[in-house]
């Protein structure tokens, strides 16, 4: 099953799912985690809004696509 899917596919999946579950785990175990300041703004805007939502997905899309 899934024979022939390049290894980079599993690496990309691992990065996206790993990121989600790591930060979600921190959110449900550390009170107030989303609002902890990082680089001057609440952390959730960095790890969720900018990185998880847009930047990481674009990086994975480029890596996926002689």
């Amino acid at each position, binding site marked *: *099953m899934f024979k*022939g899917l390049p290894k980079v*596919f599993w690496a990309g999946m691992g990065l996206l799912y790993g990121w989600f579950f790591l930060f*979600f785990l921190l959110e449900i175990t550390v*009170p107030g985690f989303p609002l902890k300041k990082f680089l001057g*703004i609440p952390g959730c805007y960095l790890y969720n809004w900018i990185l998880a939502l847009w930047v990481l997905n674009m990086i994975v*899309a480029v890596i*996926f*696509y002689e």
Partner: protein
Amino acid sequence: MGANPVVILGALIYFAIMIAIGWYSRKAALNASDYYVAGRKVGPFVNGAALASTYLSPASFLGLPAFIFLLGYPFWWALVGIIGGMPIATLLTAAPLRKYAPTSFTDYYADRYDSKWLRLVAGIPTLIAGIAYVTLSIVGTALFMLAILKLNFNVSVVIAALVVFVYVYWGGMVATTWSAAFQGVTMAVAAVVGAIYTIAHFGGINGMTEAVLSISPNFFNTPYANEKASHALMGMWTGVVGFYYTWHFGFAAMPYTVVRFFTAQDIKSARRSVFWAVFFGGAMYMGLTIIGTAARTLIETLHPFMQVEGVKNAVDVLKHMKQVYGVGGAAVTDYSMIAAMEGLKSPFLLAVICAGGLAIAMSTAAGWTMVLNVLLGRDLIGKVFGSNWPEEKPVQVTRIMTTLVIVICTLIAFNPPALVLDISGAAFIVILASVGPPLILGIWWHRANTTAAVANILVMTFLSTYSWMYANTKLGSAHWFFLSKKGGIVTPHQFYWVFVGFVFFILISLITKPNKDEIVKKYSYDLRPEN
């Protein structure tokens, strides 16, 4: 609140550009291949922007901010799940399906599972999802018509249906690919402009966060870490994970995006299209996150209806709106995003938002209507029941089917059965649980067979539809586990059926007869990247 001439002008400019693109590209549609798959001559940037605008719908543009407005910060992860599913599709289905290059969504099922009747079987959940999606697109278009013209909701639904009808009637995939690309750029720009206005209004992200917390102190609360959750549906980890996975695999397996992989020039272009879809879709989602987060605060501090006697909060504003404009069913909460933008009192901003909203609603309606046209005309009347009519007169068949689909969906749109995002979630779960496993495993697993495909599609279509409707009607929300009680186990949209579907499909495949070797070679092994 009356109609604003600047907002009307913005909508007219949008329609003028759409007509110009439609007129120019219509000349390119010469034969059935051009009509159905744009002659397979669309580059990655255009195809990617078109992919984003077709895939993302009013369920995104109105529904996601409405759900952030209702459920709070934890729902942000649902948006991450949707965009995160896009790159996965690059290698999982986009490249293999472009290599195979069919015309219709059901072609793969008929070929891989070696039976024309698979078109009929796969057509059942596709028809359910398609009707749901065209309906929510008409509701979305109607809400933007209401925002532009300040007309009664029922009148807005009729105008919206006419707009969608004329647009789809105009041309096939050629017209809708080029105009959908323009719509993809428009919707992304609209959401980003809305977010910039919002952040600027509060003087920055920190100012916005403080303002949100002053109105909704629990907004950023997360399950378990805080004594009180941001919402009852966000009180369990399954709420967040369930919403993350509800739409996650959609980009790889939903009929209306899968057909856009067919229109790419070649496999390389199909793969690169996904990057541009992530670029435009992700940009739009970043904007929608901000608008949804600030919606309650903007409405309660700025909306003109807050001055009305008896109106005390954002929910009251929406109730008042429902009363004034006669908005049917659950649709008024979907207006929260527009109401938030109305609060900023900028006609230019509202014009941009309405153009973006019309763009996303019309492109999704067109994409799904084309899928249903091909399914009902070419696939069922032509391939299953043997008529030559769809091949000889594709435009005539398409237009008759378009009329049929839009009339049915308009009748439902007058009184929407749920919020647009809930309608979308139901469509996704039905499709992903039923036709998702035979599509994905059909490519990537040699043992996938006809018996399992038929059994999975029929069983999962019934179970997912029944459990969703049971929870929605008997428990008051489609997000409670249908065998528990209201306030019991949170399972957004009964999302577990997607995973159950894959397990069920594998088990049935293992205990029944495999397909012929030559079929498996041609439609499974040969489609994989190394071959």
